Every structure is written in C-alpha cells, then in structure tokens.
C-alpha cells in the first residue's frame, strides 16, 4: 500500500474516475442527511415515550431500543434487502440505507434524549404545569431545549457514527462512497491504496465539520451565562 501511494500514475488514473467518486459521495451524503433526519425524529419521539407516564408507551420504546441496539446493523439491512421482497416490499438500496441506518441510530439517540430528559430538575416540570402547559408543550418549549446542552456530545457521536455506518449499504451494492472505493480498488490494476485513502478522506470531509461545529456550539451554550454576565458588567460600567 505504501508503495502504491508513491506511484503518481495510480493517482492520475484514480482522478480520471473522479466524477464517479463524486456521484458516490453524493449518494453517501443523501443517505446520511435523510437517515439523520429520520434518526433525530425517532430519537425525540421514542425518547419522549420512554419518559412518559403511560406504561404501554414506555414498553414500546424499550422494545424498540433493545431490539435495534442488540442486533447487528448488517443483519437488519440484509433482512430488509432479502426478506421483505417476499412480502412484495421491494425498496431501493438507497432507501434501505436511509431506513435501516436511520432507525438503528434513532434507538441510540432516543437513549440520549431519555437521559437528557431525566437530568432536568422536577421543578421545571412543575413550573410548566403550574402555568398550564400541556405535556407536549412542556417538552417542546421547556424541557427538550434545556437538554440540548447535555445531549449534544452523545448526539454528535451518534451522528458521526451514522455517517460512517451508511457504508453498510456497500454490502447490498448501494453505490455509495465505500462501494465505489471498493469497486475501484479491485479493478484490473488493483489500486486499493489510493482508492481507500481517497475514500477515507471524503468520509473525513463529511464528519470533521460536524464535530467541529458541535464542539463550538457546545462551548457557546456553556458560555452563555458567562456572556450575559460580561454584558451586564459592561452595562454597569457604563452606568457608573
């Protein structure tokens, strides 16, 4: 591999194929974005269900989380790809990727949401109830916004895992980035070195901005009180 990446002609050949990689990158991006949206929605819904007073909702949320956390993503994908057609449900590889990765990650996200809700003091729920907010309003306006600071780090871990996990569709020939790299790596000249390096770099390009943004946003949330403090000090200085 080391030797391969020193050979310029291999890189020239690889970049001649660039449009194909770009298209594959687009597919990975598409699966990632849509699966992420699905995972966030499921994470919030099942996270709320798992903290509800209704035991049935709690059980449903529990079953969902335990099932998807404790079986491999690959088997879930294979099941949907190979078994569902027998029930006349045929989905495209990209759709399968979005659904499977989204539902799988949603289970982890709902656990983060549940932990976040659990960390909010009881007084917040009581204040909301004393003002006449309904359960859903309490969650959406008062509780969930407060959990962001707490659940952001685990959520971002899950988002990055989600992006990397979209490579699972390679196993069902999904045409994603990993699939393209694989296909190129096993071509007639066997340029696996440059191919996998480029592939890794492209995943990095997707994930790194996300983690960087999250780190900054988290710091900003944590500094918010301090910032208003300094603002206040400034006002007082001016007043004095």
């Amino acid at each position, binding site marked *: 591999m080391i030797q391969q990446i020193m050979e310029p002609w291999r890189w020239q050949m690889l970049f001649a194929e660039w449009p194909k990689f770009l298209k594959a990158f687009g597919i990975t991006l598409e699966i990632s974005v849509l699966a992420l949206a699905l995972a966030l929605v499921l994470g919030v819904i099942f996270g709320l269900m798992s903290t509800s007073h209704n035991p049935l909702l709690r059980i449903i949320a529990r079953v969902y989380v335990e099932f998807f956390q404790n079986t491999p993503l690959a088997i879930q994908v294979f099941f949907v790809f190979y078994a569902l057609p027998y029930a006349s449900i045929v989905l495209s590889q990209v759709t399968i990727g979005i659904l499977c990765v989204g539902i799988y990650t949603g289970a982890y996200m709902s656990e983060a949401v549940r932990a976040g809700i659990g960390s909010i003091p009881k*007084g917040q729920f*009581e*204040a909301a109830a*004393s003002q006449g*907010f309904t359960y859903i309003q309490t969650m959406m306006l*008062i509780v969930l916004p*407060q959990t962001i600071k707490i659940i952001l780090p685990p959520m971002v871990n899950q988002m990055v895992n989600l992006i990397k996990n979209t490579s699972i569709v390679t196993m069902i020939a999904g045409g994603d980035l990993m699939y393209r790299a694989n296909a190129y790596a096993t071509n007639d000249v066997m340029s696996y070195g440059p191919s996998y390096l480029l592939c890794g770099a492209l995943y990095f390009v997707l994930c790194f901005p996300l983690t960087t943004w999250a780190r900054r946003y988290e710091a900003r949330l944590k500094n918010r009180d301090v910032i208003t403090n300094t603002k*206040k000090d400034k006002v007082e200085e001016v007043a004095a």
Partner: protein
Amino acid sequence: MIKLVNVNKSFGSLHVLKDVNLEVAEGEKLVIIGPSGSGKSTTVRCMNFLEEPTSGEVYIDGVKLTHKNKTEVVRNSTAMVFQQFNLYPHMTVLENLTLAPIKLQKVPKHEAEELAFKYLDIVGLREKASVYPSTLSGGQQQRVAIARALCSRAKIILFDEPTSALDPETVQEVLDVMIKLSQENITMVVVTHEMGFARQVADRVIFMDDGRILEEGSPEHFFENPTEERTKAFLSKILK
C-alpha cells in the same frame, strides 16, 4: 374562589393530608403556617393539582378540578411561586415572562412584552430583562418568578415557601414585593414561616399540624391569644 372538600392525600403509606376542608374567598390573603411535614405545602399544591388528592374535591372558581381539566383550569385561574424559583434557565428574564402569555393566552408578542415590563417595574427588575436567570441573585430570581406569575393575570397566586431558599439579606426584598401585591385584588395563598409578613398581610391565618387544620383565625387572634396548645408551642418557638 378556592374550595377544598374532605381532601386526603397519601404518598404510599404516608397519610399527609387528613380531611382538609378549606374555603378561600376572592381577594383573600390566606397564610398557612405550621411545622415542616404538617402538610401545608401539599395543601397548596393540591389547589393547582400539582398533587392530585387521593380523595376529596378541589374547586377553583366553582369548577371541580379533575385530572382531565386541570391543565385548562390551572392555565386560566392560578399561578404559583415556588421555593426554588423554577425559572426556565435557557430563557432570558423577558422570555420567562412572555412564554406563557404568548404560547397559552395567545397574546401578541409586543403586548406580552409590554405586560412583562409593567410587572418587571413592579418587582423593580426592568434592567434585568435581557439576562439569563443564573446571573441573578436568589432574591432577584424570586422577584422574576413573581413577575412571571403576575404575567399570567391569574386571579389566584399560590406561594409555596417563597422565601425559604433565600439568603437572609434578600428575604425582605421578596416580602416587600409580596406586600405590594397584597394591595391588589388577587387571591393569595401563602405558605410561609415569615410571621411578620403573616401579621402584616394576612386576612386569615391557618395553622396546620399532622395533615390537619388545627386552628384558624385572624392574625391578631393568632399572635395574641391562640387557643390550641400546639399552636402556642409552635409560635413560641418560631417567634423567638
């Protein structure tokens, strides 16, 4: 305005309220005193169904509170000030004050803000409108909480030990606001250990012990010649 009929409340095997009967007239300032564990907080928390009675009935403005209608009745008629303030930490003071009017009473934003500033003036904190609660002292937070309760324009404000969590030097600023408030035609039910406040503001004082109303009467009656031995013993301890 408020009526409790044979209210009982148990937490597991702990029988906290025992056949409490109580009526509060419109505009009345009722102070509830008693040793800790006597059920005074639970009594006031039953008035907005933060605790639902195990048996017995609670009427607000003639309407019987039920699990189903509590959110609506509470929204329209009552507000509460808590021992721990329970301001929403992710919102500025102004947002804390306008959230319920905007989301629940559907008041236009600029009107809600006008109202908020009016009440911030009353509690003397207009200049703190744009800061987050964590930058305020306990006394200031509690004054904001009182302004928040006023913003709901509820006819009934329930105070659950509003000064018990405060530093001694900030207690008076909160009491001053409550005294100012007592001149309005708002029904106030106040659980407190501040006997000076009770003497100055209360129309009626209730002494609770062991889940029962042991004695009730005017402040003069209480502080000059209470009849029950238990009341005398309590007052002699607290008035030292």
